[in-house]
């Protein structure tokens, strides 16, 4: 956005104002725009869609009364939570308790600074974008730990501690998974990484070599764990900890935690997309910049949301892991594999500096083969169970 504002300043749009003030105002404006125009609706719609997706998987219907197909359910829920009493327990550490949810939301919303929407729609194309991303999401740990501690409740505390252990552990595999991409693209800037890829699948970093192929899935697993998503949702495990670190929260602050969780889903999808799946890259089908940007936005959004959808699906499929299993998965499996990916990619770059076309095509074909096998298994299950079929997503 900075070049855009610089152009406006050069054209004399803010004559008489100090440059710093213009920047500050613009920052606030874009912040408000992204939070209220994108983050909130996305988090809300995701919460609705998630319930619908689980419902279908569990042969239920899900919310379908508020608005067409229950689409406005998220608004109803939001308003309900806003109107509820915001209870602060007597024994709680009041300032910490009140402030904790903001940290969590902050950590998620701040990532939108470097997450691009299209080739020219990005708040700030920092040259340390990816580093910033991993650093700023660590704020979530602070918030969660604060919430857990300040609630003065054993469930909350255990939830908070678990979450801290989990997020800090999984930062490592997540970072290890994105390092090969940094090697390949030679930049930390999110726009730079996307620009280093192409629109076609075999230009995506996920299919660049077998190591990045593994890294893509590893990143997704680690990101889900960082976002406290099932199957890694032990910090708020309902069957063990009531609601973990948000046990004592109610009303608006409770809403904030869940907004952060659902907003985070989109962030996970967007980061996976920009690192491994070609970001907003589209074929240069038009010379009109506006049209091109709109199509880029669409492509990027669809790819990101695809991963959000997968995470809903995973949540409805896999059971929650135990704490020890969670740590085993991180330290015994993901971290060694992550190092292998890193070294493997480095060697690959030495051997084939331009990348190996055959391997790239091969990986894409492999993916297609896996998908074909997948659909065959799905058909097998449908044949065997002989259920009543109902194809329409609307009920």
């Amino acid at each position, binding site marked *: 956005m900075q070049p855009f504002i610089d152009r406006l300043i050069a054209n004399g749009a803010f004559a008489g104002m100090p440059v710093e003030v213009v920047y500050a105002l613009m920052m606030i404006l874009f912040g408000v725009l992204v939070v209220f125009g994108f983050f909130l609706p996305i988090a809300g719609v995701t919460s609705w869609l998630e319930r619908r997706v689980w419902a279908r*998987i569990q*042969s239920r219907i899900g919310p379908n009364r508020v608005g067409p197909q229950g689409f406005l359910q998220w608004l109803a829920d939001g308003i309900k939570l806003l109107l509820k009493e915001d209870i602060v327990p007597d024994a709680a550490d009041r300032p910490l308790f009140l402030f904790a949810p903001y940290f969590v939301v902050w950590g998620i919303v701040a990532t939108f600074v470097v997450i691009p929407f299209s080739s020219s729609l990005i708040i700030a194309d920092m040259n340390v974008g990816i580093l910033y991303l991993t650093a700023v999401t660590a704020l979530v740990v602070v918030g969660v730990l604060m919430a857990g501690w300040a609630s003065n409740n054993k469930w909350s505390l255990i939830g908070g501690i678990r979450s801290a252990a989990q997020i800090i552990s999984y930062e490592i595999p997540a970072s290890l998974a994105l390092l090969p991409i940094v090697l390949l693209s030679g930049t930390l800037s999110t726009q730079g990484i996307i620009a280093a890829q192409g629109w076609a699948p075999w230009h995506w970093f996920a299919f660049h070599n077998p190591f990045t192929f593994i890294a893509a899935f590893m990143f997704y697993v680690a990101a889900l764990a960082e976002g406290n998503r099932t199957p890694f949702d032990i910090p708020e495990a309902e069957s063990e900890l009531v609601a973990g670190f948000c046990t004592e929260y109610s009303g608006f602050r409770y809403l904030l935690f869940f907004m952060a969780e659902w907003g985070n889903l989109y962030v996970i999808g967007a980061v996976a997309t920009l690192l491994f799946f070609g970001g907003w890259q589209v074929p240069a089908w038009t010379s009109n910049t506006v049209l091109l940007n709109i199509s880029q936005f669409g492509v990027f959004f669809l790819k990101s949301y695809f991963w959000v959808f997968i995470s809903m699906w*995973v949540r409805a*499929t896999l059971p929650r892991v135990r704490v020890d299993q969670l740590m085993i998965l991180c330290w015994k499996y993901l971290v060694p594999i992550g190092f292998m990916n890193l070294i493997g990619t480095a060697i690959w770059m030495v051997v084939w500096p331009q990348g190996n076309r055959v391997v790239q095509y091969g990986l894409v074909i492999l993916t297609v083969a896996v998908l074909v096998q997948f659909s065959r298994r*799905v*058909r097998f*299950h449908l044949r065997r*169970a002989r259920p*009543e079929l109902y194809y329409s997503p609307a009920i």
Partner: protein
Amino acid sequence: MAKNDIARYFKNIKDAVATIFEGMTVTCSHFVRKPYTIQYPDRVPVRIQDTLPFRYRGILEVDLEICTGCLACERACPIDCIVIDAPKDQKTKEMLLTRFDIDIAKCMYCGLCSEVCPTGSIHHTTEFEGADFSLESMIRRFVKAPVVAYKAKKEGETDPVVAPILERGMRYIQEFAEPADMKKLKAEQKSAAA
């Protein structure tokens, strides 16, 4: 030992990938299955009450036309939610039913009362929507004005009004109080005694 560990390590990875893959195919197949949800109460094709079986233990009802006033149900009820007043009419020497109350708020739908009823007068319906605003209103009072208790006739019921009710009651007893296996049990006991 070490070799086994390494083999198990890779087997674990393989198993994880394979089982998650398989699990995802199962849940994916559910996307196109028809949901089972019944959207009670407003979006149902027929009233739920009409889809329930004859033997469903819903809210109790009494057909006063065929109640003999034997008080069997009142005695059978383990929590005393049935109250019957059946005094004898001094002039006609007939038994009158002046009060027949069932407190739905207390009833636990155990079905003991309808099992012992000789005519099937007291029986469960398929109605289950009993919510109300006060406990008082949960008491179902069946006697509006005193009625004469029913007396079984040797030659069978001939009254066109009462006959179908009695027939239904007897069918209810057969289906509800004496399920098929109970009949078999009785027959077995009889043959064992003989």
